[in-house]
């Protein structure tokens, strides 16, 4: 179990557990070399780039993502790409054999494997949360800045908080009070979040949930008084421990929840604004095309987003929703 904590002891314990999981997890080694698609952007190509995709495990979502990335590359710099995809377990061997120019890690486990080995090539971590990337950077490079200096970049899954607030206001224009839950990692940005809420003409009700807190006791009074509730993604343990009670309380007090994942939405939230595989693939391809060559590392927020609604919840809460295209268009215009 990954358990990223700001305290050192918790971090060590979590790391130990992570290693154990990595060792014991049975992953199918399937070496499939995709056809080596050569994308010829222009007739006067002079350089060839070799990209190694390291995925956390052999699962459809990862292979889909890599396929989408390759499909979205346009070779804008006149570069011919050669791709190899492998699971994180074989990263070292693959790295030696393939001698890639770039490494793209897909998933938190693949990112940790690659970052642990500190390769010479630039690394781009995708399909990873902001908090997870921060923890890995701190763990293997000392800090985010040092990781960036080592040409480690990331495209985080987390959508900007402003988008969630904006979406909440669009869906519930009459909402006056917005409850916002933060966790251990996001606690330091509570003021920013409160400001965003205020900017959206709503009164913020902030609540921070620690790892040892009883979430019900803390969440119930906030949710009870809110017109809309927005949980901010944070530590995985906090996310999971609070989600069940947030949804139960929102159901009890008829307070809609704006979620940050499609799965959260399916569990009972009213709406979700999140990064889909297509969103991540598009941003990754653009990053490779535009920035990998010569770019130094950095953490990049999600450029694209997806919106979904739970029509059953909306019906129960008597909320009239417009089409997703409407909200997307408004948000993209913003």
């Amino acid at each position, binding site marked *: 179990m990954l358990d990223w904590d700001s305290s050192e002891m918790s971090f060590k314990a979590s790391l130990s557990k992570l290693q154990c999981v990595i060792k014991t997890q049975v992953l199918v080694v399937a070496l499939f070399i995709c056809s080596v698609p050569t994308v010829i952007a222009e007739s006067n190509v002079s350089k060839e780039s070799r990209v190694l995709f390291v995925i956390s495990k052999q699962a459809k979502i990862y292979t889909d993502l890599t396929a989408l990335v390759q499909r979205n590359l346009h070779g804008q710099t006149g570069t011919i790409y050669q791709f190899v995809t492998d699971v994180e377990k074989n990263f070292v061997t693959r790295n030696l054999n393939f001698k890639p120019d770039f490494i793209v890690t897909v*998933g938190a486990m693949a990112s940790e494997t690659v970052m642990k080995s500190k390769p010479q090539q630039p690394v781009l971590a995708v399909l990873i949360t902001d908090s997870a990337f921060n923890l890995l950077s701190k763990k293997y490079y000392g800090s985010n800045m040092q990781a960036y200096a080592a040409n480690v970049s990331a495209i985080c899954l987390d959508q900007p908080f402003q988008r969630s607030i904006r979406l909440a206001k669009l869906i519930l224009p009459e909402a006056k009070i917005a409850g916002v839950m933060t966790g251990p990692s996001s606690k330091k940005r509570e003021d920013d979040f409160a400001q965003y809420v205020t900017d959206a003409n709503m009164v913020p009700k902030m609540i921070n949930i620690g790892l040892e807190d009883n979430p019900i006791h803390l969440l119930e009074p906030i949710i009870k008084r809110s017109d809309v509730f927005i949980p901010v993604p944070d530590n995985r343990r906090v996310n*999971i*421990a609070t989600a069940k009670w947030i949804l139960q309380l929102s159901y009890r007090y008829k307070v809609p929840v704006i979620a940050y994942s*499609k799965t959260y939405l399916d569990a009972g939230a009213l709406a979700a604004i999140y990064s889909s595989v297509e969103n991540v693939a598009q941003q990754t391809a653009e990053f490779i095309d535009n920035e990998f060559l010569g770019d130094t590392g950095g953490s990049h927020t999600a450029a694209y987003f997806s919106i979904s609604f739970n029509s059953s919840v909306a019906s129960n809460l008597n909320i009239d929703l417009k089409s997703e295209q409407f909200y997307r268009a408004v948000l993209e215009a913003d």
Partner: protein
Amino acid sequence: MRDNRKPASIHARLLLTTLIPLTLLSLVLGWYIITSQRTVLLNNLQDTGRVAVHQMASNAEFALFSGNQAMLETLGYSVLDIPSVSGIIFHNELDKSTVRIGDVKLSTQLISGSFDSGLPFFIDHHWYFFAPITINDIPIMDYDEVGQPEAESLGWVIIELTDKILLQEQREAIFGALIVTTMSLLIAAWLSMRIGRSISRPVESLTETVELMEAGGLDSLAAENGPMEIRKLAYGINQLATSVRESNVHMQSEIARATVQLQITLIELEEAMEAQDQFLARMSHELRTPLTAVIGFSKLLATEEDPAKRQEHLRIIDSSSTMLLTMIDDILEFSKAHLGGFTLEKINFDMDQWFTDLVAIHRPRADEKNLSLTCNIADDVPRQLSGDPVRLAQIFSNLVSNAIKFTDSGFVSVDIKRQTSDGDHVVLDCAVTDSGKGIAADKIALLFDPFAQEDTSINRRFGGTGLGLSICKRLAQTMGGDVKIESEIGKGTVVSFTCRLFEVNTLSPLEDDQAVLAEQVLAGLSILLAEDNPFNQKLIVKLLRGYGADCLVANNGLEAIEIAGDLHVDVVLMDIHMPVVDGVTACETIMQQSGESPPIIGLTADITPMEQQRMLTAGAVSVQSKPVDEVSLVNSILSSLNDMNEISPNSGGGLLASVIPVEELKEALYENLDKLDLQLRSGENSSQRQIIHDLMGLCGLYGMTELREQVLEFRAAYGALDTEENIKKVQRIREHVEGYLVPDSC
């Protein structure tokens, strides 16, 4: 050892055979319902407990996690709404608190370790169901690589269910099952009785009907209902009863008819007895009258000296004696006719001469009364006839005498005409007409009754026995005809009759006893002839007597056996085919009789060696074939007696041809053909085979091969032909006889 137990009725047996299995079935059904219901109720209780405790564990997660005791109590009391739930215990692992809701009997000491197995636990009439309360996190991350964390235990919940309701429900189930079983038993009993009755009732009904029929109630009808077999049986009994009833009706009808016939016969007998008494009285009177006259005038004659008176007395005595004699003759004639019929002679006579003599007898009396007596014989009447002229004259004399007697003035005429002729036969139509006082129509029929006259005054006035017409009628019938009277009061009477005679063209020179005798080689021998055909008997007897033998005749095999056993017989001539006992059997029997058996010579028309061998095997010394060869037969008889004499074909042959005239043979053939024709027309076939057999015998005897073949052909075919065809075939045989047997050809 006899079983004295009373046999069970069909109804009882059917009842037992259906009730026992149905009762067992009902009991098994009841037992099954009870046990299954108990199981179902227990399972329902346990299911209720399990569902409730898991539902409660799930629902209590929030309350237990949040430490909300009020919510726990609300949840607990909601479960108590379930009738069988008597209590619930929530335990919070976080703060080690326990909440008891309801009247929970379970002690804290028993809780620990009692529910590790997860199965319900039963203590002191209570069931306990346990479920842990855990936090089950829900997935919310889209790209979660780790998976859901393990469920965290919050505590547990125990639900207590009392078994009171279960027991109550089980009692109700048992009660219901008992009701179902009882109903099943009742239905089974009812069904058994119905089935038993449906079978036994028709049988009992049939039994009652049969008993009624036995008691004479044949009008009773068995009800044709119930099972198919019983219906068939009832139908059969009804048919039988109907048949018996019809038979009884028929029998009663026959008895009634016979009784009526008997009564009629009795009346007729009484009338006959009365008529006989009257006749005897009248005869006594009538006989006494002339007898008294004879006696009286005889005494007067003795004392009378006047010659004229003496002469008158003598005339009266003569007249009375004649009258008396006539009366006695009539009575004797009638008696003769009454006992056995008349035996007619067959004598050739000349019609003209015979009629002249007849008229001459009656003309004096007609002249005395100044009556005209005219006689007329039609020209087509054959003048040479064969028959009994005496009896014919008797009929005429009676009728003419009566006509003269009852006619005071006028005439009496006698007319003879030829009515029909068939071959040699001629039927004469004779009539005696007078101009007398006539006879009343209602009296005519009485005239033919014996001892009856038109009225008693006639007897007193004219005398006579009243038997005359009766005798005439019998004589005419014997001659193949009949008598008929037509009369009108005041105008006269016509009495006519018909008779059948033979027309003789050339009078035969031979008579029965005119056979020419040959050598007397068989003189002194007693020969038994066993032959069923009378004609053959006559032929062979005449033949043998011609050679000096004494003949005994047996009509069948049985008679031959008896005669051969009782009388001395030198030789037996045995026909093979005879009625009663055939020749072969008779031959065997005679050969087995004690004492010395006479030699037996077989006679057969069958020429097959097998037939002759049968006879020889039976003991015959030889077999003679028909037609009989005269010389061979006589020599065979002599040979059988070891007599060295022998006749030659020239030593007297031709006797066979002479002994039986052709006319006689034809008459015999015609007689059989007439009988056959009559039986065919009347549809009676009782003696057709015998007649055909006799015909074949005659044919065989005289060697008429073609005729015999025709008869054989007829015998083979007559059963399959209709009456008309058979009659035609007989007619053809008759024509063949006529064409074959001309007097000179036989």
